[in-house]
């Protein structure tokens, strides 16, 4: 569906059809009575706390919120949210959530998935949910390992990864989840980090406000099977040089500050290849630095940003909202067709339908 496809009933916002809560909520309202059973120290705890802490901000009736997950450590998430929830089967959460969202536009539907669940066994459902732009908020917990099955390499593990199933090192090239999402026509793509509560909450807020599919990749530490996988972007010292914080409308700069107090490194477009490259601002100057435009109609720059990080060292990893554009949501277009059908032909009448145009009568 092209971006300019008409939305007949006017612009919608992500949550305009979802009833609001009658009274103010707190994080406690979103905690279920179930004991949380992730390994002590797991990054999932931080994400759960951030989501429970952020939900009251939305002010939605919590009975109209649904968390759907697949299989994997992160997919236990719905059990801990005091909302409606479904812990489904491996990889299929986006498909199940698509049906739910398409049938019920008054719900705020969230998908919780992992790198194995979303990118390996469920890869097909993920890309199709994104291209359809179903109004789902997809939280992809990426720990670059299979945790629940006790430590095999995943489709985001770095090449050569030594695991139980790859004692001589893994052979396959990993997926870049954001490049994949952008290639799948995603209208909202972001990345954040489990341990950065403030940034994580900011990205969740932006995702919740987006009408359509939102893919949020969350770098999440598995302290049992892949501990320290994201240390480069978490360690305060190293993060300054490793992390690029994207802010819409701001020049893309990072690293130890230059004279103007902003990051000493900047991102420019290489005129020869069109690729993005990192330059020293002191040498290059501020002229020509790429200004981040999350709303750009073309995904080209967002894609280039998704390729900026070194996949092994995670050096120069952009975080934040890469892309956020308006495009009609699948379920709105579907609802419009249902309305149109009634307008054009009237509400369906069963007796007329069953009789058809060609009947004959047998007298008694």
């Amino acid at each position, binding site marked *: 569906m092209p971006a300019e496809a008409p939305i007949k009933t006017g612009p919608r916002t992500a949550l305009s059809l979802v009833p609001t809560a009658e009274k103010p909520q707190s994080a406690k309202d979103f905690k279920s009575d179930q004991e949380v059973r992730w390994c002590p120290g797991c990054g999932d705890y931080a994400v759960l706390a951030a989501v429970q802490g952020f939900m009251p901000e939305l002010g939605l009736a919590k*009975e109209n919120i649904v968390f759907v997950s697949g299989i994997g450590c992160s997919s236990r998430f*719905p059990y801990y949210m005091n909302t409606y929830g479904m812990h*489904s089967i491996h990889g*299929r959460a986006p*498909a199940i959530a698509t*049906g739910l969202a398409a049938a019920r536009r008054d719900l705020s539907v969230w998908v919780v998935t992992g790198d194995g669940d979303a990118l390996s066994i469920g890869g097909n459902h993920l890309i199709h949910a994104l291209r359809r732009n179903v109004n789902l908020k997809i939280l992809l917990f990426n720990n670059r390992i299979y945790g629940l099955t006790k430590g095999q390499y995943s489709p985001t593990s770095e090449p050569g990864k030594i695991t139980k199933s790859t004692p001589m090192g893994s052979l396959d090239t990993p997926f870049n989840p954001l490049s994949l999402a952008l290639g799948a026509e995603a209208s909202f793509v972001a990345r954040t980090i489990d341990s950065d509560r403030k940034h994580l909450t900011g990205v969740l807020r932006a995702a919740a406000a987006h009408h359509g599919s939102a893919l949020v990749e969350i770098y999440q530490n598995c302290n049992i099977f892949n501990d320290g996988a994201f240390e480069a972007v978490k360690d305060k010292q190293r993060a300054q040089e490793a992390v690029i914080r994207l802010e819409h409308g701001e020049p893309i700069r990072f690293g130890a500050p230059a004279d103007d107090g902003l990051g000493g490194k900047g991102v420019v477009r290489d005129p020869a290849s069109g690729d993005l490259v990192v330059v020293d601002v002191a040498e290059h100057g501020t002229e020509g630095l790429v200004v981040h435009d999350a709303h750009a109609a073309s995904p080209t720059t967002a894609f280039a940003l998704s390729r900026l990080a070194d996949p092994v060292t995670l050096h120069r990893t952009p975080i934040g909202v890469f892309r956020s554009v308006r495009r009609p949501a699948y379920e709105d277009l579907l609802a419009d067709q249902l309305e149109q059908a009634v307008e*054009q032909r009237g509400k369906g009448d069963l007796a007329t339908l069953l009789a058809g145009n060609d009947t004959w009568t047998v007298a008694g």
Partner: protein
Amino acid sequence: MTTEVDQAHLGSKDVRRLDRVIIRFAGDSGDGMQLTGDRFTSETASLGNDLSTLPNFPAEIRAPAGTLPGVSSFQVHFADHDILTPGDAPDVLVAMNPAALKANLADVPRGAEIIVNTDEFTTRALAKVGYDGNPLENGSLDAYSVHRVPLTTLTVEALKGFDLTRKEAGRSKNMFALGLLSWMYHRPTANTERFLRSKFAKRPELAEANITAFRAGWNFGETTEDFAVSYEVAPAASAFPAGTYRNISGNLALAYGLIAASQCADLPLFLGSYPITPASDVLHELSRHKNFGVRTFQAEDEIAGIGAALGAAFGGALGVTTTSGPGVALKSETIGLAVSLELPLLIVDIQRGGPSTGLPTKTEQADLLQAMYGRNGEAPVPIVAPATPAECFTAAIDAARIALAYRTPVFLLSDGYLANGSEPWRVPETGELPDLRVRFATGPNHTLPDGTEVFWPYKRDEATLARPWAVPGTPGLEHRIGGIEKQDGTGNISYDPANHDHMVRTRQAKIDGIDVPDLVVDDPEGPPGEGAKLLVLGWGSTYGPITAAVRRIRRAGGSVAQTHLRSLNPFPKNLGEVLRAYDRVVVPEMNLGQLATLLRAKYLVDIRSLTQVTGLPFKAEQLASAFEEALDDAR
């Protein structure tokens, strides 16, 4: 069959009255034989004959022209009385080319009429299908009554006033043939002309060309000496109870049944589906009825199709997925999830020849054990199987009733023969349809020892063992469900051994306890044990040929009882008793004996299994002789 010779019809030609006729239209995949057959059927239905049809076409959309694999055919059987099958052998074969003649001749009994398009019997076309000489000239068809008609030439000649190339004009030869057959069998023509005008609404010149060809075919029959006789088949009024009738195919009836079920349940219909032969027509049909609030979702694959339907069911919709055997294989894991979640869901399997891709356009009943057992763990799923094309309507409603009342996925097992075959259907009054409305949970259903009122998603209804259906949006009933084993009552994750044992047995007990009607045996000679010694038991689309065969035996003085299963899981409560009341039980199936295996295992009775896996339905004659044999053995 000929009973009378004195009716006047269009001039001086003879008119004979027949009680039934079987016509087979056969040609190239591109010759429009399915359309021709459909139109003839429609004319026949509007005349009030009873009828039954058998389309038979290759899986390839356009196999190489003029070859045997490219032959497409449509058989229609119509009568002035109640009939059950599309007929064993055609009385009339229309062969549009040598391939069509060669592929179908073996089915045509001696003495039958064959109408051939002589224009296509060129040396090259004959050689292409391995004819040494021209069968129209070498006497090999002497045993038949052959009408040699240059259909293409006559059509082109009739259309010379139109601005069409010879090739374009020639394409209307199927309508010429339809016109000719319509004259021969006194079919009404107004509907076909109306149909052509609407089909070619955007190209009125093509509509007129086709109508001209159609009329030319009719006039050709009336004027040429070659066709000296025309035939009447009177309406089958006495075969039908009073009412309004229409012709309907199985897939159409099934789609209407789903819409009716959604209306009866007052729930929106949500179809998640992936295109697959021979089930796609249900997706197409439902997609046309969005003004009934029907949401159709063409998914990225079979798994997403059922996943979306299950998600919609969680949200309170009547969730449906439609597919065929290969699709069921892909959906198995999600069906297991639906068993565990205990949510209503319909899985429509239009069976086709297998294994693997098998025979996509042919019929088979070999998915029974897949539907019954094809999942990991103990995952019982009810199975409903319609017996005739029209019965697909009530079967869909019944499957929905079970799914909604018992909160369970339900299999609806149709097949390619039912899907594409058609027959007259008495259109039901909407007031006759059952009330399928459900009560969603609205508040707490359990009191804790301390007096707190809570909602337990797995606290069951005592009568049905169904769990409450609490849909998102209901305040206070927030709960989580999933595929991991749940504690009885609370629905919380539980790995407790005794709880798992209890839950497995409870899920089974729920399905075993589903209310299905007792099996009724048809035996004119008395109730089970007091009449016939031989029982013939079938399921699904074998109903037509089995019943026709049973009638033959009874007409010849033989004694045979017949019964047909509509519910294959659970079986009717009296099934064991019925089976044990007969000396011999014969079970015909289009598989290698899947129902027979289930019956032997469950009831420890001896079953004679009659099987066929040709991709085609049984013929009544063949079943009748098998039943005769069983009767002889029983004596």
